């Protein structure tokens, strides 16, 4: 599992195979050198793109890096935590936006993750039944997942157009509304993005859950039927417990991905989605690359990372606590 401690990360077969390879030729020092040489290029690439920028990100967040100092940003004046204070000062536009962005992304993630998971689960259960054309449908549901983000979200933007969109056509035709709603401006914009993201996100959940469903031994269900268990009881006592571990990983991954959501907001609503649909990524991008206040942008992105870290730790703690209670 992704988030368990390092010691459980490598599977048993990993350990065995590596141990054996080490034993194959006794020259362990040479072995080490070969191994290090082989991972070196990957390490260097990731150092340069991931780890080093992360450290510099901390540095930038503590310095006054803006339009005037950016040319020589490594010597920008040190200002302690002022960027962090300014970034969340509710009396400024940015501060108010930052607080609203955190609220928006929480609402967005909660709805997108839970609805996406439920739909994915329902479809996985459905596709686990026998029916004609099953293989074809299983392939077909991956379409939204593999369609490029910018394509999918532009098509949804087109669907949500107020005057020329297909959605409003049916809303008016069926008499559900009398005036065509404007979906992509103001408060409804967040929900339009939620709808598009759910459409794009559920196939991944369905794919992972279906793979887990297929691993459940069929004789468990047969035994349950012999004992007279209803469909609902079989679901609650056989299916769900078997999906538990994959659900844990899937939900955590979805929460993290959705908290970082950028593409859907940027493609559907543009650089400035407006107060009601502002999210951290769009705010940070604008703060840094439109207003050229890199220090504040960095401070905001570090806060975002810390929030994700806390969410992950709390999630795993709660999980471990409940799992422990069940075992007792």
């Amino acid at each position: 599992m992704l988030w368990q401690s390092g010691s459980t990360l490598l599977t048993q077969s990993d350990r065995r195979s590596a141990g054996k390879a080490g034993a194959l030729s006794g020259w362990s020092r040479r072995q080490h050198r070969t191994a290090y040489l082989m991972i070196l290029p990957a390490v260097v690439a990731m150092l340069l793109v991931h780890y080093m920028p992360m450290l510099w990100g901390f540095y930038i967040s503590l310095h006054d890096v803006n339009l005037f100092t950016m040319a020589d940003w490594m010597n920008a004046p040190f200002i302690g935590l002022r960027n962090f204070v300014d970034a969340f000062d509710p009396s400024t536009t940015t501060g108010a936006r930052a607080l609203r962005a955190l609220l928006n992304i929480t609402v967005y993630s909660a709805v997108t993750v839970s609805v996406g998971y439920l739909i994915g689960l329902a479809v996985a259960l459905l596709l686990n039944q026998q029916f004609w054309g099953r293989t074809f449908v299983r392939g077909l549901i991956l379409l939204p997942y593999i369609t490029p983000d910018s394509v999918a979200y532009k098509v949804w933007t087109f669907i949500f157009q107020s005057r020329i969109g297909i959605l409003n056509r049916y809303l008016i035709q069926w008499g559900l509304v009398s005036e065509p709603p404007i979906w992509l401006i103001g408060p409804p914009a967040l929900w339009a993005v939620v709808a598009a993201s759910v459409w794009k996100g559920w196939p991944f959940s369905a794919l992972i859950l279906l793979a887990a469903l297929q691993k459940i031994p069929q004789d468990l269900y047969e035994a349950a039927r012999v004992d007279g268990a209803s469909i609902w009881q079989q679901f609650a006592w056989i299916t769900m417990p078997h999906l538990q571990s994959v659900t844990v990983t899937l939900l955590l991954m979805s929460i993290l991905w959705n908290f970082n959501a950028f593409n859907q907001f940027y493609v559907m609503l543009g650089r400035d989605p407006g107060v009601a649909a502002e999210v951290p990524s769009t705010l940070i991008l604008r703060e840094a690359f439109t207003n050229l206040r890199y220090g504040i942008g960095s401070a905001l992105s570090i806060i975002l990372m810390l929030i994700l870290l806390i969410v992950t730790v709390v999630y795993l703690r709660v999980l471990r606590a409940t799992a422990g209670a069940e075992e007792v």
Partner: protein
Amino acid sequence: MRPRRAIQQILLYLAVGLVVLVVLVPYAWMISGSFKETLELQSSDVTVARLRPTWIPRRPTLRNYREVNSSVPMLSYFRHSILISLGTMAVATVLALLAAYALSRFNFRGREAYTVSVLATQMLPGILFLIPYYLIFTTISRKTGIPLRDTYWGMIFTYTSFALPFSIVMLRSYMNGIPLEIDEQAMIDGCTRTRALWSVIVPLATPGIAAVAIYAFIMAWNEVLFASVLTGRVTRTVSVGIMDYITATSSNWGGMMAACIVISIPVLILFTAMQRYIVEGLVAGATKG
């Protein structure tokens, strides 16, 4: 019992039909839009029964496809994307192959720490790297005179390291499935390590390698955030370029839908070709990872 079974069957097919419908509706709207005349799109109005937007274009036209390159330089964007994606694919595959082989075959100090750090980078927000990365890019360019922003090399390098974490994990789990005895046999027969890797392991791991290569290609093709900041006139990719069809002064939805179809085609072809392996890799990455 029989009628109840029949009803169950009907409900099952209705549910499957609903799923297929939900998946396909946006694609139908995209295809329909790509064959509509600009005039039809601009004059349609949901409030006027006569002008309602329709699924079937009133006067189907191929003009959006023929003129896909006229208002927006889509063909250049397409060329940039192809070069960047192919470059990323080549570099990421080689680096991932070496790293995955080392992780799967050697027991070296720091192996577990390395694996954890590889997985951790996958979960961090991209925006976190973007600001420092951009500033470092700018500084290196100014100090050394080597341009990095808006160059193919800069983009290929950036995307390679994005593709690496998942590629390494996916390929490692594939290689763990290849028995060690095969390496041993090759080396007893007098192969060197390198020889054993290239002429024995690589052919056996071809499906895994192909899946990783296609994953890297698709990742580079679809990326939006870094492309929106780091690419410019010379390297603008399709994912960002697609937005040029709608500007403050004109909205060419027909052209945009045609372009959407054109830029989805490479991804669809590659994914369909290697679907089984990529799906296996995704599932393994999420469950075993």
